[in-house]
């Protein structure tokens, strides 16, 4: 390592500490303070520790709303990600493998899904017409629609690295199209599937605005919306709010820590032919 590399490394570490670690430490410190001390929003060491009492209070708030929110968010995340993976892989496979004059049109449709921002009010009209508004499965479909383009993009580029010979060998072995997909192609998509699962589940689990627009109702609450429990126009309980943030940040963080190597592998696969 040269002197120059050493110092650029130090600077990069310092910048990322300021950007990522300090806010997290700030959240953790406020979360263990009592109400009065937390309201000052200082970055000082807590006078007294209230970790457990804050935690219990956050979980019990509004008749255990946080637990219901965890349940709802988990159902939405698992449901949406499952559909995204299966549909994304299938569409990506067909788009990559089958030459047809419709391909460029379909591809334009997929790309427009990435480029055109969704409009909230018309979407609500559609949901209402289909009786999907304020329902968990409606929310799942919304997330599938928003995430599908990106999933197809990733799957398609990954599938292009799987040699066509494998499909043909399976055809000669007597496999039907669905058998080729599920028994030969899908198992080979593992790296990119992990990427899609992690990226999308974190995005969906952390989603605030879509749940706010499309999923009103007390029984439909998702984790991000529980943040409203401790914030109001006149009084805010900062210690509980930050404890809540801490609690709902941890699951995605764990997922990310376990899978980050595979995410990079899945993202870059297909970029360079191996």
């Amino acid at each position: 390592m040269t002197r120059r590399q050493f110092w650029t490394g130090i600077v990069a570490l310092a910048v990322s500490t300021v950007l990522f670690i300090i806010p997290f430490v700030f959240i953790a410190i406020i979360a263990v303070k009592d109400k009065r001390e937390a309201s000052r929003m200082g970055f000082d060491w807590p006078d007294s520790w209230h970790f457990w009492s804050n935690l219990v209070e956050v979980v019990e708030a509004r008749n255990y709303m946080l637990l219901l929110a965890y349940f709802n968010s988990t159902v939405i995340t698992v449901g949406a990600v499952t559909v995204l993976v299966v549909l994304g892989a299938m569409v990506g496979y067909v788009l990559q493998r089958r030459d047809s004059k419709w391909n460029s049109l379909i591809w334009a449709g997929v790309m427009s899904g990435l480029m055109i921002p969704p409009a909230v009010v018309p979407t609500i009209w559609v949901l209402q017409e289909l009786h999907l508004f304020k329902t968990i499965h409606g929310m799942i479909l919304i997330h599938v629609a928003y995430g599908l383009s990106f999933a197809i993009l990733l799957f398609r580029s990954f599938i292009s690295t799987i040699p066509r010979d494998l499909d043909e060998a399976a055809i000669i072995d007597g496999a039907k199209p669905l058998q080729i997909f599920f028994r030969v192609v899908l198992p080979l998509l593992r790296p990119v599937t992990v990427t899609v699962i992690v990226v999308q589940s974190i995005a969906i689990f952390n989603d605030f605005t879509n749940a706010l627009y499309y999923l009103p109702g007390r029984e439909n609450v998702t984790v991000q919306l529980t943040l409203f429990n401790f914030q109001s126009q006149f009084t805010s309980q900062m210690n509980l709010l930050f404890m809540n943030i801490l609690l709902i940040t941890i699951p995605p963080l764990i997922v990310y820590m376990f899978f980050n190597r595979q995410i990079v592998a899945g993202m870059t696969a297909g970029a360079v032919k191996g």
Partner: protein
Amino acid sequence: MAQVVLKNVTKSFGAVEVIKGINLHINDGEFCVFVGPSGCGKSTLLRMISGLEDTTSGTIDIDGRDVTGEEPSKRGIAMVFQSYALYPHLSVRDNIGFGLSLAKLPKAQIKAKVEEAAEKLQLTHLLDRKPKALSGGQRQRVAIGRSIVRDPKVFLFDEPLSNLDAALRSQMRMELTDLHAELGATMIYVTHDQVEAMTMADKIVVLNAGRIEQVGSPMELYDHPASPFVAGFIGSPKMNLYDGEIARRMGCSTYGIRPEHIALGTEGPWGGTVKHIERLGADTIVHMDSPEVGQLVARIAGDRPVRIGDMFRAAPMTGKEHRF
């Protein structure tokens, strides 16, 4: 065991016709090699026989049955790919048994068949490995094993040895020849390597630009090439071919003489200066510049002393000349 008969087979990709009317009869149990330069349509023709590529017109019969519109899996063929095309996520055992498990055979029967094939190809100790833990030659054997278990009427090989190194390639050539003798099945083998064609084939089909140039046994093609193309393609180093004024003097439009049929010495119609020498051990290939014919290549005994700049007279052996 089956005959393969192609009748007026053509293939077009859009406006481009890549296979231009092929008629071919491959006998039961024959080892038939399609050989030709890249882009001549040999792989396309093999893929048409396998059913992976549609036939634009004409018919393909396998074992007396017209299979032109049939699914690949219904044609009674098995194919070995250049890239081996092993399923990377499956063990060797599952790779070999994949087709059988798709056909929903009982587990015990699959196991027995897979082990029998593995035995035949000395793969028994590798059955539980994944393809990535195998060497190139072993992968090739697994790919062959996958085709054997299906008991096909016809085996198709698409340049199966081109990813192997030279030593392994010659070993696999012998193994394939042995396998052919053991199974007695009809085999169609595509290669661009005329050495593979010469050493393995019962029948060689030389293809050029979507047409058959000549069909025959290896020695027929070597001794009696029907066209300058075949003459130049079969045999290594290439036959010396001359056209224009030199050929007219010989009474033909193209005159050919193989390097091994030129005697170098003090007598002969052509003079020449040695420009380049390739020593192969047993033989030496001598490249010469000749004022009479231009470039001239001759094969001489490996122990004969020769140096760059040496002058020789070259004489073609009578009866070994080719006139087209």
